[in-house]
């Protein structure tokens, strides 16, 4: 095999061995193994009527289990072009009868049987599945255009055709039938506007070549017919190929990174139609994969993406993975501590990212303290851990931390956010009782299912049963449904209150079906201040506002539930939710705990589970959820398992082969301490506690029952949430100028540095030498000794101010508080 001059030039600097390897890889690219077999989807096609088509998808299978899409490179031949033909991989009917399509790729052949019936029978375009699908495909009824509640330019349609009655009115009848012209279809405003034949604020949205144009034009020409009531309805869509294929981005084979999708709509009469041209496609990550209007997916970079496919109210997502060769990459085969590492490493190996080494003990102790109990270790704790030579000292430290009283207090802070625990909502006495209840639940390590049932079915006085405050912070049935969905199902349901969710399967019916579990909850004030009485009435129904239908209680996958007339409807919901195999319950909490530890969920944001926002490692999340459910929903067990993994203990320093990775957990992602952690850490380093309102002096920021019990400017600036919503996003992690000013010379930092009783002033008054003061500060703030250079720099700063030692050490402490190493969890 000849080597071109260009290739030689680029290879020359390499070692001789390198040339051999490069040579071998070039050879393999050209002598690419031929596919072993080919498959065609669907294997047989039946057309009923002339207005049908079928997108074929040709798959080549290789000896190494790899699959590739050969739809665009295959050649097709029909045995009878009078019956069926193939254009660009799409079978089209041409007359009644049977034909066989021969498919050929690289010498391999297969066939598709085609049968066409009723070719000459008229097949008018359906209003719903044709015209409205075409309008939805072109985006006319999108939320930013005519699908907005007030429409655009005097023309309003329902958002993505969720209300065909309204659309029937606006398309056919409104303004004397102005928009459709059955006498001269081509002069219909509905076509002229998006084709820019007359001025259109939305610009060019339709061309003659679009499948949507033919459907709309024909629908008008056929007299704008409506669907007969008995017309079959779409019941589901199917996308081929489904999830799981792995494609290799490879310059040698230009379309190896592409996949043509085929979208089939299944109808209530059993018929199946190809809706590939009418489905709407989007990618969860455009950097990884793009998807064209016709359903052709193209990989852009290694990683994973969910391709969301929508046809009318039906949504399916398929997950695709793209890999590519990385020059010089070799899997290091690190050991695994448990199943977490197995799953994380499998993904990293596939995508060719190399995990970072384990972090140092100094980093580990700081990290695990902050994540588990919210505060920094004392100097004594740090020194004891660092000097311990036991090989299982990390595990022992984890076990010890999980039993510390601060554990419950710190996790109660996190759940206090989710439960919107504030004095404003439940009163002064109320918030303390509610917080005590939550604290006890974490102290006793109550199983998560019990905890959830206790919250969701709570009744009675909020003083006697503080969990009932859940129905106090959720003031009405909408708030209740939306909060429960977001906290326990990880689903943001707000959109579905007024219309079908635009990006998710949640429909308006689902929203009110869920609401039927909770609309009987009553709230009555009690005699004592801050007390409320919560109970479930025995009657009361909820109606879907658009259809006026009375809704039966409904839960995802379980469907409608029959609840005995005299039962509290919340019970069956709580029962459904906390079953071991509930698809949401364990996954959402496991992911939330993961997100707490890594600063990023496997599904992220952690309270936004949806098909179009896939987990970055589905197998990992499944395994965590399974472990959690099987271990009686024991949160400490799950925490312990994660904390003991090498994945958690990985260094935050990236290597050459994982720098790009931000979501597959190849290395620890540093993040700013939370507002409360940071304040406690500053108090810890300076040795000057912060007092919060009238709360006992021992209460730390990470242990506050509610943000509105003590107004603290510092906490607010660093993103302490007001607990107005159940959204994780309310806790802001944006950095801003206010934060810089607070750290630079804010009253809090300034006050603590000036405090006569602070750590370094006490040491000075105890006549400790400079180097000991400096080392103490480093150990307190960073859990490590200063390096020689650091120590020297600090000492020379102090030496430069012989008249003012205190001020010089004040400077040193200030500088440490302003390092990234202090401010960040790493």
């Amino acid at each position: 095999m000849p080597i071109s001059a260009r290739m030689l030039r680029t290879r020359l600097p390499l070692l001789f061995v390198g040339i051999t390897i490069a040579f071998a890889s070039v050879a393999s690219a050209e002598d690419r193994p031929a596919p072993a077999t080919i498959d065609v989807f669907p294997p047989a096609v039946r057309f009923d009527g002339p207005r049908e088509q079928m997108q074929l998808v040709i798959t080549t299978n290789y000896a190494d289990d790899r699959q590739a899409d050969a739809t665009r490179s295959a050649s097709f031949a029909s045995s009878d072009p009078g019956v069926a033909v193939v254009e660009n991989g799409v079978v089209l009917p041409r007359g009644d009868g049977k034909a066989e399509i021969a498919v050929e790729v690289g010498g391999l052949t297969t066939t598709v049987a085609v049968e066409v019936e009723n070719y000459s029978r008229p097949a008018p375009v359906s209003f719903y599945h044709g015209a409205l699908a075409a309008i939805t495909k072109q985006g006319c009824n999108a939320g930013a255009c005519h699908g907005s509640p007030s429409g655009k330019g005097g023309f309003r349609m329902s958002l993505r055709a969720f209300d065909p009655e309204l659309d029937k009115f606006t398309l056919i009848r409104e303004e004397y039938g102005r928009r459709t012209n059955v006498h001269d279809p081509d002069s219909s405003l509905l076509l002229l506007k998006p084709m820019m034949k007359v001025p259109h604020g939305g610009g060019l949205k339709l061309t003659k070549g679009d499948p949507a144009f033919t459907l709309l034009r024909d629908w008008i020409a056929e007299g704008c017919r409506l669907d007969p009531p008995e017309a079959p309805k779409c019941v589901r869509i199917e996308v081929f190929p489904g999830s799981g294929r792995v494609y290799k981005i490879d310059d040698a084979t230009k379309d190896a990174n592409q996949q043509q999708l085929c979208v089939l709509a299944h109808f209530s009469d059993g018929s199946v139609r190809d809706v590939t041209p009418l489905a709407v496609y989007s990618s969860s990550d455009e950097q990884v994969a793009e998807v064209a209007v016709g359903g052709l997916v193209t990989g852009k970079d290694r990683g994973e993406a969910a391709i969301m496919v929508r046809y009318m109210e039906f949504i399916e997502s398929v997950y695709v993975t793209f890999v590519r060769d990385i020059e010089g990459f070799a899997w290091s085969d690190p050991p695994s501590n448990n199943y977490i590492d197995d799953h994380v490493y499998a993904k990293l190996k596939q995508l060719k990212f190399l995990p970072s080494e384990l972090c140092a003990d100094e980093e580990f102790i700081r990290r695990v303290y902050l994540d588990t109990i919210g505060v920094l270790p004392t100097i004594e704790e740090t020194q004891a851990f660092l000097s311990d030579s036991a090989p299982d000292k990390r595990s022992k430290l984890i076990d010890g931390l999980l039993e510390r009283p601060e554990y419950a207090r710190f996790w109660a802070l996190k759940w206090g956010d989710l439960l919107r625990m504030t004095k404003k909502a439940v009163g002064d006495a109320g918030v303390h009782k509610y917080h005590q209840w939550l604290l006890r639940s974490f102290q006793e390590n109550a199983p998560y299912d019990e905890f959830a049932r206790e919250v969701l079915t709570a009744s009675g006085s909020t003083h006697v049963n503080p969990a009932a405050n859940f129905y106090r912070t959720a003031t009405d049935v909408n708030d209740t449904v939306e909060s429960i969905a977001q906290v326990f199902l990880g689903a943001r349901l707000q959109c579905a209150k007024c219309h079908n969710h635009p990006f998710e399967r949640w429909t308006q019916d689902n929203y009110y079906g869920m609401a039927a579990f909770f609309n009987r909850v009553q709230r009555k004030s009690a005699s004592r201040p801050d007390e409320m009485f919560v109970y479930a009435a025995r009657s009361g129904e909820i109606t879907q506002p658009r259809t006026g239908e009375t809704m039966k209680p409904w839960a995802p996958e379980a469907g409608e539930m029959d609840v005995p007339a005299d039962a509290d409807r919340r019970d069956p919901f709580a029962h459904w939710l906390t079953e071991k195999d509930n698809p949401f319950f364990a996954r959402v909490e496991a992911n939330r705990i993961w997100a707490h530890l890594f600063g990023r969920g496997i599904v992220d944001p952690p309270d936004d589970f949806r098909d179009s926002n896939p987990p970055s490692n589905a197998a990992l999340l499944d395994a965590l959820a399974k472990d959690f459910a099987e271990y009686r929903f024991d949160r400490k067990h799950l925490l312990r398992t994660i904390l003991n993994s090498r994945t958690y203990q990985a260094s935050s320093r990236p290597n050459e082969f994982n720098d790009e990775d931000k979501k597959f957990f190849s290395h620890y992602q540093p993040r700013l301490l939370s507002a409360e952690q940071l304040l406690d850490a500053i108090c810890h380093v300076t040795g000057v506690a912060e007092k919060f309102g009238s709360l006992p002096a021992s209460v730390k920021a990470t242990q506050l029952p509610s943000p509105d019990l003590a107004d603290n400017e510092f906490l607010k600036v660093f993103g302490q949430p007001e607990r107005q919503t159940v959204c994780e996003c309310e806790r802001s992690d944006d950095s801003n100028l206010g934060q810089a000013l607070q750290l630079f010379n804010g009253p809090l930092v300034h006050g603590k540095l000036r405090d006569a009783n602070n750590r370094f002033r006490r040491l000075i008054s105890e006549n400790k030498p400079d180097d000991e003061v400096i080392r103490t500060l480093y150990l307190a703030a960073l859990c490590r000794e200063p390096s020689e250079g650091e120590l020297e720099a600090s000492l020379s700063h102090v030496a430069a101010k012989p008249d003012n030692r205190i001020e010089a050490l004040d400077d040193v402490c200030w500088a440490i508080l302003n390092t990234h190493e202090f401010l960040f969890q790493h």
Partner: protein
Amino acid sequence: MCLLCASNGFAEDAVSFRADVAPILLSNCLACHGSKKAEGSYRIDSFERLSQGGDTGLAPFTAGDLDDSELYRRITSEDEGERMPLEGEPLPEEHVTIIRKWIEQGAEYDAEDPGADLASIVPPPVHPDPPEAYPQTLPITALEFSADGSQLFAGGYHEITVWSTSEGQLARRIKNVDQRTYGLDLHPEGKLLAAASGSPGRRGEVRLYNAESGELVKVLGTMSDVAFDAVFSPDGKRLAVCAADGIVRVYDVESGKEELTITSHSDWVMAVAWSGDGAKLATASRDKTAKVFDAKSGELLITFSDHNQPVKGVAFHPSGEEVYSSGADNKVMLWKIADGKKSADVAGFGAEAYKLETGEDQLFAVSADKSARQFNLNDRKHVRDYRGHEEWVLTAAYHPPTKRLATGAFDGEVRIWNVEDGAQTAKFLAAPGYAKPTEQ
């Protein structure tokens, strides 16, 4: 358009801006270079703007100098990123030739006002013939009786159909009409028929026809979107027209001159009415208001906003001091011109209320609840309901001498009623040649 240039056979080279160039610009350039969108800050919706050029600062055209004519360069460019219309097929050769010749011949403007809307200077087109047989019925949006009441005019597709009132038989067809007709009015002397018509989104027109022969007498005006109503003043000297361009125009019938242009409404103007003395005009608009103007000066006298929904119909009380209006709030209201305050709720329908029709001392209102209702115009007392239509009733016409009311519905059906006893005297589909599909 090319028929028109071909007709200038004696001077093959003489290209007219208004007849030849403007139509090309309107149908190919306006969508991106008009009032809604002005790509490159360039607009072509009047000659003045067309001449000014856009962001490039280059002259769009220079008389006799194609090389210094950016417009010509852009329509002929080989570079698809530059060639107009962008993302579209290039202009056909014959259109390019017309524009080239016009520039070569001096790029002259052959209409009066260079600031005039381009759509208004284009010579009125000869409209295509109506379909021999209607494939579908058309919503009945305009009706009017002939002077003696024996015939009924109805808005058709590219035509005005004329029917015998007694039998509902098609008597004749008036051609050379734009797509849809939304308003018809017979001149007080009975000879002239005014039609407010248009092609939705593209053009509006007001034409006068000889009511007896059906011949086109005059095209009074052209606008950018459909005309909804045309009503003669009580003395027959003026014609008030309102349209989807939001403008109310008053023409002198004899001279055809546009005497008044009222731009007070912010959305479509759906109906217009004259006060009995011809001194005031009332209008109904999709901007959710009804307004009253001085018919001489065009000055706005009062705005009525109580409907809070698009207003569809309007009529004067005989006193001249109050106005009836109907709207998408399903209501007919009576209100005072002096202060714009509501005097009374006259009627509440089960759905949107449309046209208000008056005659003698009677008021008729029609609605999407499929009924028409009659009231005494003076004391607004309810007289009678007309029920039987199976679809929204969109319009009505009343002929006092014969006491006949005609109502037209969305399904193309026209019904004639005797207002003395409320009996229906005829019913027909105003769709020539339409064959109702047999139920399968």
